[in-house]
């Protein structure tokens, strides 16, 4: 249920612009990896290459390899749709489908896989996914109401439930708490802790305390200046990144000094 990700010589482009340069990284299964760094350093861009969402943007392209348990997801003949069915994603802002009920939202991804489900199976899966996202107790009485009626934090957990309902190998989170209040943030962070028992979790965050709290390993990305590509500066155990970074750039960033 959880795969190892090996990123090899990854260069990412928007048209002719080289946004990220030469990323090498190994992400272990059943772990939480945090991507930190200043805005524009390419951390979200790298995250979006892990489920081939990067190429949805017109003109965007990638060179290099990303191996999931040894299989290159950028290999010839690989259908991005199949990659995305194995790699779930949670976005910066909660985006439940507004016309669907809570239950339909949870089942949206499963229905895509053309799986025929009996009613009881569907009910069971809905409960499992919502429990997995720590949302079941709050919504169990209104599963047929629209998902857009929930609070921001609940909507984000609904999106997590939707992502884990398809039982992905990897779960990507792009600043999942940046639009949430501290209490909802705490709920999501607790959830991330639970999720790593089953999934490989990669999270982009601007909040360094959050990275320190939730992740096993941390990758620090930086950019030399506008128009220059972002680079992976340091990738290490979270504890050593925050207490004893190897690179001066990392130390400057986590201590709030720049340049």
């Amino acid at each position, binding site marked *: 249920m959880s795969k190892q990700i090996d990123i090899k010589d990854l260069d990412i482009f928007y048209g002719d612009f080289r946004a990220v340069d030469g990323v090498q990284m190994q992400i272990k299964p059943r772990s939480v990896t945090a991507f930190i760094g200043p805005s524009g350093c390419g951390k979200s861009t790298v995250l979006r290459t892990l*489920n081939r*969402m990067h190429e*949805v943007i*017109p003109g965007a392209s990638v060179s290099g390899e990303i191996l999931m348990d040894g299989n290159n997801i950028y290999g010839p003949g690989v259908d991005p*749709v*199949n990659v*995305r*069915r194995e790699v*779930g*994603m949670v*976005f910066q*802002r909660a*985006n*439940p*489908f*507004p*016309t*669907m009920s809570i239950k339909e939202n949870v089942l*949206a*991804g499963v229905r*895509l*896989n053309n799986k025929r489900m009996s009613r009881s199976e569907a009910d069971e899966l809905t409960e499992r996914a919502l429990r997995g996202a720590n949302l079941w107790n709050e919504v169990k009485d209104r599963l047929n109401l629209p998902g*857009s009626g929930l609070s921001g934090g609940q909507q984000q957990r609904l*999106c997590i439930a*939707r*992502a884990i309902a*398809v039982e992905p190998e990897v779960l990507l989170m792009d600043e999942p708490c940046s639009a949430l209040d501290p209490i909802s943030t705490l709920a999501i962070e607790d959830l991330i802790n639970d999720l790593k028992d089953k999934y490989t979790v990669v999270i982009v965050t601007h909040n360094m305390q959050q990275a320190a709290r939730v992740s096993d390993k941390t990758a620090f990305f930086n950019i030399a200046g506008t128009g220059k590509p972002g680079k992976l500066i340091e990738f290490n155990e979270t504890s050593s990144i925050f207490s004893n970074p190897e690179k001066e750039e990392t130390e400057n960033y986590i201590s709030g000094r720049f340049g």
Partner: protein
Amino acid sequence: MPTSTQTTVSGPAGAPDPDSRPASGPAQTPKAVVRPGDRIFSAATLIAGILILLILAGVALFLLAQSKDTINAQISDPSSITGGHGFFAYVWPLVVGTLISSAIALLVATPFALGIALFTTHMAPRKLAPVLGYVIDLLAAIPSVVYGLWGIALAGNLTAFYLWLSKWFGWIPIFAPDADGSVSNTGRTLLTASLVLSIMILPIITSLTREIFLQTPRLQEEAALALGATRWEMIRMSVLPFGKSGIASATMLGLGRALGETMAVAMILSPGLLTASLVVSGNQTIASEIAQNFPEAAGLRLSELITVGLVLFVITLLVNMAARAIVAKTSVKGS
């Protein structure tokens, strides 16, 4: 000194004081400052809003006033009205013809328009999409006379198709051949007119739905894609639900145009009595009836035609109200 006397005067008159206070209260609150630019702008928009109501009321009043003769004739001597059986017997086939031709036009145009709009917004190569949108908008700029001429040319080529339809699908009343077992040999039937109408309303539906589809929140599209949706599944999960009310209002606008279209139908259709079959000559629409008979009309006939116009006005009004209701019902909250 005078001020002190005033206060003592108002002092004994203590009873009315609480009453007068609330009255003077609001007057004392400082007036909000309104800039001249704001005032001019709000006046201009107010005038525009009132003007459109006045014009509409003027049209309605004109139609009503001119219909007076027909209404009187209908009451005193129904047989004096064209057809000899009163106004309703006269207008009924026209209403049906109008509704049928518009419905067919809508039925043909809507799927096409949605397809084109989806293609230009979500499928077409990035360089082709704007060109295609431009071409579609160009269709809207073609005068209806040209559509009429084109429709007449098209009609001749459709006769073989109509013959085929009547041969194999003649058991369906709308494709039934006439008593001789043949179809219109000019092809200038209500079906031809409806098909031309469908092309005429295609641009408005296409460009409106295209705008709607372009507004689909990127986050919604990505939500579907990230779940492993194919392009079509993404469209079904996020683009179409989001655009539902827009699609409804776009088709209703197209319907409005089809209902009122005059010139092309008047040129293409060789009018006749109401018949169920769409492949034989016959049928007539309201707008075309007015256009074809207006030049020679006078007296009661003129009033009749204007009354027919009033009927079309009411139908269009009802269509617009229905459209509003549908849009209100289907709009999606949140993004």
